[in-house]
């Protein structure tokens, strides 16, 4: 693990929208695998889910229109 990769992963999480978070969860799942190197706890599942949780709380974008009232 190195600093540059850590910054990259954090930047992705910071800029994430709902669809990107879905992609992160599906495409990365357990940590970032980068050229055979597994970086755990950087874009770790907990961090992704923390953001997902905040997003689901704060934004109705991902919910059906009926639930927005």
């Amino acid at each position, binding site marked *: 693990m190195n600093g540059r990769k850590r910054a990259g992963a954090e930047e*992705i999480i910071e800029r994430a929208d709902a669809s*990107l978070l879905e992609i992160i969860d*599906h495409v990365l799942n357990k940590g970032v695998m*980068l050229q*055979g190197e597994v970086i755990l706890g950087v874009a770790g599942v907990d961090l992704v*889910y923390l953001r*997902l*949780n905040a997003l*689901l709380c704060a934004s109705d974008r*991902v919910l059906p229109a009926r639930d927005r009232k």
Partner: protein
Amino acid sequence: MIGLYAIALGAPPELTGARGEPLRVLRCGELELVHGEVPLPLSAEALRAHEAAVRRIAEGALACLPARFGCCAEDEAALSQLIEPRQVELAEALRLVRGREQMTLRVHGARAAPPAAGGPGTRYLEQRRRAMILPELDPLRSALANLVRAERVEGHADVASVYHLIDRGGAAAYQRAVEGIQLDGLRVAVSGPWPAWSFAPEIEP
């Protein structure tokens, strides 16, 4: 170095990878290992491009097990070596996902309090059990029973993810069924259809 995109059955011809490169298919028993160049450097765009490439494979193949971003091998021989010992498991997973696609539910909200009965150990185990199977979702399960072929649940602190495998083309009916159900104190966001990401065994180099 080569990058793995998917393990497939009946992969379509003329596929392209995240860099626009033509993808190659390496046979390993009945498995087709769809691979291309090494992944792009990690970025949001690279993840989207990987997802799109996997989606193209899944849409044209009979069955597709997506490979996570960054799954690489030195060359075709090394890739074979990585996959060969797991052929039986992977072939079984391919049978499960054949003709199917994934829907993903993010479930947010307080979990029902565990029953007060029993000692701390019993209460802990009950809590764990509930986190694993989310019994609060049973009304949803009943509504989706005709559509769902397999389920995986991942519980986290505040958000649980439920992954469902459905027959291809069933996404609209699935979405309608989810939207027609009210769950006490839970908010459910649905996305999909996706390639069967959550039903693919992990391949780690």
